[in-house]
C-alpha cells in the first residue's frame, strides 16, 4: 500500500516537474512570478512618480477604529471579487493585479490614516454560487469597507439587493450594466455597453466616411450581455442612418466558427457588410478572428467591447485580421506617457507583475485602488470612516493621474462616459488609443435600458 502511494506521489511530482519546465517560457501568458521583496526593487522611479494620493493625505489625519466596516487599528480592508481562475480570468486577473499593485505601493509609502491597506481578492471563477459565498465571507467575516471591482454582470445582478442593504460601495466594476446605474452604491468608471455601442458606431463612422455608409454585422457570445451589446449597436448604427444586417452568435467555449463565417460571407456578398462588431472574451475573439482569416475575410475591420481590448488579441491573433481590429476601453496603459506611467510600472514590478502595466485591465484595477485611497481620506475628514461616509465621499470628483477621463460622480447615476478604440502598439508592447477620449465624446447618447426583442 505504502509503495503504491509513494509511486502516486512520485508520479504527480514528476508531472509537476515537467509542467514547471514547460511553464517557464518567455511569453507573457505564464503564471505571475512570486512577488519580489520591496527592498530589492530599484528606487529611482520613486522620486519621479507621484506618491499615491500624496496631495490629499495629511499624515496626521486619523479616524477611530470601525471593525464592522473594515477599519481596524492597523488596517483598512478592501475586497475584490471576480474571476481569477475561470473562463474570464485572462481579463479579470489583470484587474485584480492592478489594484493589488496600487495597494502594495500605497502601503510601502505608509498606507493611509496610520493604517495599511489590506487587499482581499476573492476568486469566484465566474460562478454566481461561488460569488455568493465570497460575498458573505468578505462582508460578514472580513467586514470589508468597500469593493474595488465586482466581475460578472450575472453576479452583480444577483448581489445587488445585498450591496444596497449593506451600503457597500463598489468602485469600478469591470462591466457597467443597467442595474448598476440604478443602484446608489455603484461607482462605475468603465463605459456602459450602450456607451461602447455608441463609441463603436462613432469609430465605424469615422472609418467608413459617415455612419450612413456603414453596413454592420455583429458577432456576439451567446450570453445575455452579448445580446444586449448587439441590440445597442443595432440601435446606434440605425439611428445614424447606417445598416445593421444581423447578429451572429457564438457559443461560449466554441473552438471554431465555420457556420458563422458562412453567414458573414453571405452578409458581405449580399449586403456589402463593411464592419464587424465583436462581443466576447479574448479567447472568443481569437476564435472569431482565426475563423475570418481561415476563410479569407481579412478586409472587414472589427471593433469589439472591452473584453476584446486585450493584448493577446494582437500578440496571438492572425495578423491579417488583427491589423484591422480595435477594442473599446476606458483607460490608458503606462506606455501612453500619462502622469501615472512611472508609478504604474513601478508598482507592477513591486507586486511581482512586471509588464502588466501595459494591460488595460491592469490600468483599470490600479485606478480603482487610487480612487479608493482618495475617497478614504476624503471620508476621514468627516471624523469617521464607514461604508456610509465612504459612499458619500465617493460622490464627487477624483484625480485619475491621466488613466481615464476626469471622474465626477456627484450626480446619479455614478458612472463615466469615457472610452476610446484601442489596439496594440508593437513598439511599446502596450495598448494605444486610435484617437483621444475627447474624439469619441460626442458619440455617447446617454440612453440606456434598451429593450431586447
Amino acid at each position, binding site marked *: 500500500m505504502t509503495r503504491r502511494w509513494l509511486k502516486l506521489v512520485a508520479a504527480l511530482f514528476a508531472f509537476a516537474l515537467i509542467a514547471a519546465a514547460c511553464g517557464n517560457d518567455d511569453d507573457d501568458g505564464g503564471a505571475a512570478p512570486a512577488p519580489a521583496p520591496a527592498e530589492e526593487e530599484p528606487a529611482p522611479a520613486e522620486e519621479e512618480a507621484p506618491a499615491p494620493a500624496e496631495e490629499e493625505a495629511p499624515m496626521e489625519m486619523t479616524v477611530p477604529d470601525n471593525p464592522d466596516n473594515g477599519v481596524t487599528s492597523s488596517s483598512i480592508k478592501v475586497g475584490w471579487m471576480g474571476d481569477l481562475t475561470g473562463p474570464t480570468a485572462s481579463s479579470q486577473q489583470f484587474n485584480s493585479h492592478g489594484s493589488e499593485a496600487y495597494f502594495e505601493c500605497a502601503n510601502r509609502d505608509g498606507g493611509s490614516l496610520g493604517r495599511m491597506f489590506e487587499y482581499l481578492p476573492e476568486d469566484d471563477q465566474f460562478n454566481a454560487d461561488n460569488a455568493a459565498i465570497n460575498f458573505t465571507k468578505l462582508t460578514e467575516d472580513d467586514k470589508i469597507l468597500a469593493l474595488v471591482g465586482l466581475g460578472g454582470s450575472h453576479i452583480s445582478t444577483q448581489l445587488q439587493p445585498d450591496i444596497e442593504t449593506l451600503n457597500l460601495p463598489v468602485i469600478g466594476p469591470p462591466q457597467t450594466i443597467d442595474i448598476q446605474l440604478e443602484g446608489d452604491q455603484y461607482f462605475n468608471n468603465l463605459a456602459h455597453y450602450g456607451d461602447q455601442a455608441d463609441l463603436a458606431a462613432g469609430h465605424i463612422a469615422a472609418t467608413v466616411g459617415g455612419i450612413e455608409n456603414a453596413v454592420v454585422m455583429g458577432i456576439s457570445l451567446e450570453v445575455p450581455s452579448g445580446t444586449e451589446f448587439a441590440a445597442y449597436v443595432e440601435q446606434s448604427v440605425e439611428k445614424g442612418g447606417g445598416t445593421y444586417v444581423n447578429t451572429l452568435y457564438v457559443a461560449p467555449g466554441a473552438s471554431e466558427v465555420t457556420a458563422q463565417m458562412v453567414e458573414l460571407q453571405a452578409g458581405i456578398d449580399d449586403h456589402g457588410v463593411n464592419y464587424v462588431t465583436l462581443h466576447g472574451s479574448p479567447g472568443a475573439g481569437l476564435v472569431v478572428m*482565426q475563423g475570418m482569416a481561415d476563410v479569407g475575410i481579412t478586409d472587414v475591420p472589427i471593433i469589439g467591447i472591452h473584453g476584446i481590448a486585450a493584448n493577446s488579441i494582437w500578440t*496571438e491573433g492572425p495578423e491579417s485580421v488583427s491589423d484591422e481590429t480595435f477594442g473599446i476601453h476606458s483607460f490608458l496603459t503606462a506606455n501612453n506617457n500619462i502622469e501615472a506611467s512611472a508609478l504604474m510600472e513601478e508598482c507592477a514590478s513591486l507586486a511581482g507583475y512586471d509588464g502588466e502595466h501595459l494591460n488595460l485591465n491592469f490600468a483599470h484595477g490600479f485606478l480603482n485602488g487610487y480612487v479608493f485611497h482618495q475617497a478614504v481620506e476624503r471620508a476621514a475628514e468627516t471624523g469617521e470612516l464607514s461604508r456610509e461616509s465612504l459612499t458619500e465621499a465617493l460622490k464627487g470628483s477624483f484625480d485619475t493621474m491621466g488613466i481615464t477621463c476626469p471622474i465626477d460622480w456627484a450626480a446619479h447615476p455614478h458612472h463615466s462616459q469615457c472610452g476610446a478604440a484601442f489596439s496594440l502598439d508593437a513598439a511599446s508592447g502596450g495598448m494605444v488609443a486610435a484617437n483621444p477620449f475627447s474624439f469619441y465624446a460626442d458619440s455617447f447618447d446617454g440612453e440606456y435600458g434598451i429593450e431586447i426583442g
Partner: protein
Amino acid sequence: MLLAFGNFTADPSVNLQLLIGGLALGAIYAVVALGFVLVYKSTDVLNLAHGEFLMLGAYFALTFLISENLNFFLGVFVLLLVMLVFGLLVHYGIMRRMVGQGFFAIVLITLGIATIIRALLLIFYGPTERGRLDLLPQGSFEIGGATVRHVDIIIFAVVAGCVLLFFLFFKYTRLGLHMRAVADDIEAAAAMGIDPDKVYAMTWAAAMVMAGIGGLLFGHVTGAIDRSIEAIGLRAFPAAVVGGLTSLGGSIVGGLVVGVIEQFANGHLGTKWREPVAFSVMFVVLLVRPTGLWGRKDLERV
C-alpha cells in the same frame, strides 16, 4: 436587421462549406473518440479525462514546439514521449489501484484526474490564452466556392493513419492480441500468462500518445489555446457513443457524422441548437442500438 438565420439553405456552396467544416470538426472529434475507444475497449474504463489529456497535449505542444522552439520532428517526438510517460504514470500511480473496482468509482477517478490536470495547467501556464499553432501548412484551396484548409486534409490523413495503425496493432501484434484478450476476459487472460497490469499500462500510454497527437492537431485548428479546449472531450463524446465505444472504425465514422450534423445545425438552426442536436442523435442511436452503430454486444452466459 436584414437577415435571419437559415435563409441560405439552398445555396450549394454554403452547404458545401458547412459539409467541409463539419468533416474537419468531425476529424477532430474522431481523434478524441479514438482515445475514448482505445481505453474503453482495452480496460472497460470510461475515461472522462480524455478532453483534458488532449488539452495537456496542446499545451505541451506549445511548450516544446513554440516556447522551446524545437525542430518540428524532435518536438513532436518529445511531446509524444512525455505523453507516453504521463500515461504510464496515470496507470501505475492511479488506475492500477482501481482495477476491479466499481464502474462509477473509476469514472469518478477519471473526473478527478481531469480536475487535477486543469488546475496544474492553470498554475503552470496561467489563464491567458495563446494563439493557434501554425507549424503545419496553413494555406487553403477552394472547391465549388468552399474553402478547404490544408491542415484539415492533414488531420484526415493522420486520423485515418491512426485507425489503420491501431487496427493492425490489435489484429497482428502480440501486445494487441493481449489487449483484446484482457478486454474480453481478464481472468482467462491472466490464466493464460498475460499480465493485465502491463496491458493496461500500455493502453493508458497509447491513449496518452493519441491525446498528444490530438492536442497537436487541435492546436492547429482551434482559434485559441486555453483551458476551454477541454470541452472538446464532452463534445466528442456523442461521436464515440454513436460509433460504438468498442469500435475503432466506428469512432471515425461517429466523429464525422456528429461533426457534420453539428455544423449543419449551427448553420441552419443557430448556434444554440448545435449541441442539443448532436446529443439527440446520440440518444436516438442509443435507443435503437444501445452499443452504438458498430459497438460490440457483450454476451453473458446465464
